[in-house]
């Protein structure tokens, strides 16, 4: 585990910034990638968004003032970038955001970088139908195994609110899967 405060100091120092940035990427690239991938679905898009996320971290680190943990701050940037990406894609194609999300999931069946079976595709369809916040909470809790407190720091929502969102998400997913099976 890296010492976050020292790393931020090094990132904010022109002399050590580049070296520290490599350490930062190495430490967080996988976690951020998987977080992004679950939102944007395709590997190529996740790659673009991941790179943009780190570029923004690099450019914005001088303004980082420890109001939150570095990890939460980066997760927040990754989340914003991913959602902005989806919104922009929908805007460019002049279609609704929910429509683009469904389309992304539909494409999974022919995606070379997806090895999921039918039930995993149905799960992704169900997740894609959730409102943004419920989708994020579900992914972070169920797949990333983050604690409610950690999710709270990232999304700026109370733990109580997150629990309610998660419960709603899980119920909706269950209902969707039941509907698909019947």
């Amino acid at each position, binding site marked *: 585990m890296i010492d976050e405060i020292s790393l931020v100091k090094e990132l904010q120092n022109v002399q050590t910034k580049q070296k520290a940035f490599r350490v930062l990427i190495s430490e967080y690239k996988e976690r951020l990638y998987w977080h992004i991938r679950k939102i944007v679905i395709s590997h190529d898009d996740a*790659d673009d968004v991941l790179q943009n996320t780190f570029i923004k971290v690099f450019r914005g680190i001088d303004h980082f003032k420890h109001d939150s943990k570095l990890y939460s701050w980066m997760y927040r940037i990754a989340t914003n970038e991913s959602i902005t990406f989806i919104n922009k894609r929908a805007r460019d194609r002049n279609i609704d955001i929910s429509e683009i999300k469904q389309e992304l999931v539909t494409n999974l069946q022919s995606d070379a970088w997806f*090895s999921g079976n039918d039930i995993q595709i149905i799960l992704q369809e169900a997740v894609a139908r959730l409102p943004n916040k419920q989708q994020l909470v579900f992914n972070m809790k169920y797949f990333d195994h983050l604690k409610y407190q950690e999710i709270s720091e990232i999304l700026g929502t109370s733990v109580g609110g997150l629990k309610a969102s*998660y*419960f709603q998400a*899980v119920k909706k997913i269950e209902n969707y899967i039941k509907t698909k099976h019947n």
Partner: protein
Amino acid sequence: MKETSKHIKDWKLADNIKTGFTIPENYFTDIEDDFSSKLIEDKLPKHNGFQITKAYFENVENNIIEKTIHKKGKLINFKTRKIKLISVAASIALLLFFGSNFIYNTNTELSSEEIISWLDMNVNSFSNEDIAFALTEINVNNINPYLVIENEDIVESLLNSNDLDYLIEE
């Protein structure tokens, strides 16, 4: 059900008094939802099926570092202020704020530093179409007088760069 609730209440009270242990607020209210969620979770697949190549995480690190080196060059342009883009930046920033569904308040005054910092953080979000959409012909005409490149080193560096497309694309 009433019996159970009474039992829980009594138990909580007794537990508090005897042991000093406390529980998070709403714990016993939330726990039913937590149990339900867990029961549903057990039926769901544990993996999402997404895959990547083995080498991806090794390569992406270098790709990002390479991009920061490019961006660093561009940052110098802003910071040396040899290229006087502040007015242009202000126009684009305000127009893009408006175009990106931000709450736009005509009374808001942004300092040049705030605008530059905001642009700096968001430059990757703009596509050519966004900028073209944001800039009217009048804006474009206004840009030209400010594009005064005073530093010969910057001019030389721009002319010698093989990556002009990259700069233009940006």
